[in-house]
């Protein structure tokens, strides 16, 4: 019986997907590729002067593609192309059926057969589930939610977030 009581979010580690300015403030973005507000958050954060980590908060009851798309991104990660796939999911949210995912994988030069196996791999599903449940334990209830220094900020971030954080 798993514990879903309150617990702090895990610290960012080598297991996380992180990009951006290594000297910038660390922001952890809990998101869902089917969430329109997350797509707006992605727009605002993508080129901001931040060190950005992304974690899945994929709720199956919210949208039937929430978990499959998160698994697809993790499958792309196994071939070293997480961020490119992640960006494409937010930037072309109207095309996320399986054939669209295969086309994306092909365009990124991935081994599509391996991508297809990996996105259905129990270990990949477990990553998405673990991140989502850890987010729940940390008190996350909606997407997008940003975690900055252990403080949770639900909702679309302001345009000048990086400026606010760097003073």
């Amino acid at each position, binding site marked *: 019986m798993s514990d*879903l009581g309150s617990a702090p979010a895990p610290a960012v580690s080598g297991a996380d997907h992180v990009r951006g300015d290594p000297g910038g403030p660390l922001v952890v973005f809990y998101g869902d590729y089917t969430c329109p507000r997350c797509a707006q958050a992605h727009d605002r954060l993508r080129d901001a002067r931040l060190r950005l980590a992304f974690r899945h908060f994929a709720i199956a009851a919210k949208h039937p593609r929430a978990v499959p798309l998160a698994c697809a991104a993790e499958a792309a990660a196994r071939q070293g192309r997480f961020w490119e796939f992640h960006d494409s999911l937010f930037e072309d949210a109207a095309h996320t059926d399986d054939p669209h995912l295969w086309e994306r994988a092909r365009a990124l030069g991935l081994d599509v057969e391996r991508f297809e196996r990996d996105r259905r791999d129990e270990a990949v599903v477990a990553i998405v589930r673990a991140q989502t449940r850890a987010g729940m334990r940390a008190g996350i*209830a909606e997407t997008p939610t940003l975690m900055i220094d252990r403080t949770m900020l639900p909702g679309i971030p302001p345009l000048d977030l990086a400026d606010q954080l760097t003073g």
Partner: protein
Amino acid sequence: MTVIEAGTSVPEFTLATEDGGAFARGDLLGATSVLVFYPFAFSPVCSDQLTLYEEVLGDLAERGATLYAISTDARWSQAAFKEKLGSSVQQLSDFEPKGATARAFGVLHDGGFTQRAIVTVDPDGVVKWSYQAPSPGDLPGTNLIFDGLEA
């Protein structure tokens, strides 16, 4: 008005089930219940809340707990809401007399609708834990439900 406190015996109440039957205090006895009071069917925060909680129904069942969703909406509105969400949470209507159960639990908003609150009841009909969100617009995380079960 404040949400009913832990240690208090659940008051007598009657709510309407989806098929028009009655759900009363006696129906809570014998098992742990999580009563989720929410303001309005189809509103954004309420929709997000019930889809989020759907994710942990299995975990609640493992702990012998059942979650019920309660609002002052009519049972037909709740049924349509449940269908739209694809939710499996049982809805209980506090429509007639409006807000009577919410009032009895201390969670009736001055506007005449249920506050956003959670009340966990033990198998003996005693409140085990209770929580009211700071405002109807705040969405309590699932972590609070499980904290309440361990309280």
